[in-house]
């Protein structure tokens, strides 16, 4: 019995050790994505969707994440209990393009330009505000791209794309957007 107990303890210790050394998926998001999560929440307030996109007050405003989720539970925590113009907020995770359902904001965690271009092209006509941080995000037809300048989060806006999807971006957001980021050639 004693031996068993000792074995159990050793096993537990080993397990704890292993857990603490190999769980990147469970680690909280870094500061960069915490702030980006807050930006996503803000975008929801400064963008106007056509009435058809949010027909009823009970229709949730969905922030989708396509690809690996860099926000952890942080985005959920930020939007929890919040409402935008009466619409509750909701976060949805999509592993692939096919899974993308009705959403108003979609964060695309895709870096490969070719794939990115294809995904964005296929989202056209669905009045989705596309957000990403890939260097070619704007060139590939994305609407808002995060980049880091002077150690801070900045963003650029592709207003033509937004307009073509009947999204109205508030002048405040447009004013704060940078015309070009370091990733744009």
């Amino acid at each position: 019995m004693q031996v068993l107990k000792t074995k159990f303890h050793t096993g537990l210790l080993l397990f704890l050790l292993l857990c603490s050394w190999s769980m990147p998926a469970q680690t909280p998001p870094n500061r960069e994505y915490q702030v980006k999560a807050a930006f996503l929440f803000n975008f929801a307030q400064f963008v106007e969707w056509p009435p058809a996109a949010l027909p009823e007050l009970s229709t949730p405003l969905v922030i989708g994440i396509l690809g690996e989720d860099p926000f952890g539970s942080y985005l959920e925590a930020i939007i929890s209990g919040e409402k935008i113009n009466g619409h509750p907020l909701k976060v949805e995770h999509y592993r692939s393009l096919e899974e993308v359902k009705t959403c108003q904001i979609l964060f695309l965690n895709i870096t490969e330009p070719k794939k990115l271009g294809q995904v964005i092209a296929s989202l056209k006509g669905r009045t989705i505000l596309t957000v990403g941080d890939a260097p070619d995000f704007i060139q590939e037809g994305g609407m808002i791209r995060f980049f880091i300048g002077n150690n801070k989060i900045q963003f650029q806006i592709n207003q033509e794309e937004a307009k073509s999807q009947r999204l109205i971006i508030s002048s405040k957001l447009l004013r704060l957007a940078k015309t070009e980021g370091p990733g744009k050639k």
Partner: protein
Amino acid sequence: MLLINMAPSLFVRRALPILISILMPGWIFSQVSDSLLSIQKLKNLSLDELMNIEVISVSRQSEKLAEVASAIQVITNEDIQRSGATRLPEALQLVPNLQVAQAGSASWAITARGFNGAPISSLTLANKLLVNVDGRSIYNPLFGGVQWGVQNVLLEDINRIEVVSGPGGTLWGANAVNGIINIISKSSKETQGLYVSGAAGSFLQDFGGLRYGGHVDSNIFYRVYLQRYDQNSTDLANGLSNKDAWNMTQGGFRSDYYQSKRNTLTLEGDFSEGYYGTADPTKINSQDILARFAQVYSEKSNLSIQVYFDHDYRNSPSQLFNQDLKTFDLDFQHSFSLGNKQSIVWGGGYRLMNDYEGNSAYLSFIPASREIPIYSAFVQDGIELLPKLLKLTVGTKLLDDFYTGFDLQPSARLAWTKDEHQTIWAAVSQAVRTPSRWDEDALIPGIVVPTQSAKLEKVIAYELGYRLTPTPKLLVSFATFYNHYDNLFSLDYNLNTNPKTYFANDLLAETWGFEFSGNYQVMEKWRLRGGYTYLSENFWYANANVVPGTELLESNDPKNQITLQSILDLPRNFQFDVVGRYVDVLETKAVTILAPAYATFDVRLAHQFKQVEVALVGKNLAQSTHTEFGAAEIPRSIFAKITCRF
């Protein structure tokens, strides 16, 4: 039974410091962890406020630096503010891979990986460390070190201090033999508003600091500052005053012009004036001005051009080392990518020092005035052997030294980023220390006449390091080194000449040791950081002419050293912070420097109420006095400080 009884004494004497450092989880490394931002706070911020949050923390930047594979440690503004440090050398005491010893009220011996030389007059001859303040070298060609007594910066406006232990010769230039300290101030954009601070206490008599930061338009920012210190004398063992009280007034400005997204122009300058010692004080004043133009194309492509002028004046009718030094320096640096696997950094510099020494009957420099030009260039290539996995960095500095001529300082560094949590690195490098005027020109009647044949001191360093971030809350780094030194400064004798002794370069040394450091966010409101350093030094002589014991002029260093800082936020806006230090005995033949091992701690209790912060700080609380380097007894002391930030 006998064995068990014997064990504790052995344990305490030798193994305890090592063991503690292994058992205590939170030492070790001085990077800031990505602390979690409060959700409630974050979601209530406006867009403008969100855009002003710095997301690249120091740790990420230093990780970038770490790609070149070196033993880098960083202390941040927060680490400094939370320590109760009031001056730059006190802030450096927080860096585990530095050996910092207070030799008097204003006198400090600071080095990395050993070689804190014996003090002569009030100067310690630690000469193997390069120190830059915002890109301006504070190297003094008189003795090859830093006059720490006069180096003050407004700690409030420091962004971070990066310390690389080990040679940094390739990128940073001569005299980075054992390490480099880079003191980096905040930009004027980051220091907008008014800061007023005042302190009064027992050892630190009083301190006053004032800064105002403003802007002309959205592209031009500036700040101006002024600070004043008055510090009391230390005592000697016999109870008499060491008569080393001092005061200093310093002011300056910095302005940043963001001409475009890519171009930044920075202009900064300082002046200071101080009096050191009570009887016949040494008067010190200095002025410096620096301009830097930086153009950033991308992360890997940028250009910077910098020019500065620095004037240091030191005079005392009865003391040694009266100096009037003017330094002009021009540097440029360019980095770019070559293909997608190589990043090149190259640059060059020209420095002209005009040094005048006021000679006395006890010590003079022949000639009294020297104009010392130094030309340098460097190139470094970072090659990604395996993308994101294995990076090789090779480079060399080319130096044309005034005394010794042309020399190379090559290095090769290999970093293996095992995964995002672990990096293993190894490096081999050569670095040199150029002769100082002390080596070359000193005339001490009856002891030495100028040799004017001093050689470059050389080190070949082998390093191995490991950096681990098992969770974002814990950062651990381990570095070990073996250094071989040639041509170290020595005092030799020849019975057939007059005087019978002379300065030469006949000392050799090998050192090895390791540095263990870390930063641990124990919980949201409690952070621990610190480290343990072990150093072993072995000296021998190139020939039989060397005066036995000459190595004490070069090295008086502790074998073991522990630093631990605890930063704790208490409820109701209280802060409780502790810094503990253990420094092993200075085993030296120089009885005047000899200091027993000591352990002491500083405590800071502060309360923040809106824009006002009140702090009570106790320093060196463990003993009523202790010695760190030489005879000066460093007292237990307290001060109270009030700070307002608007």
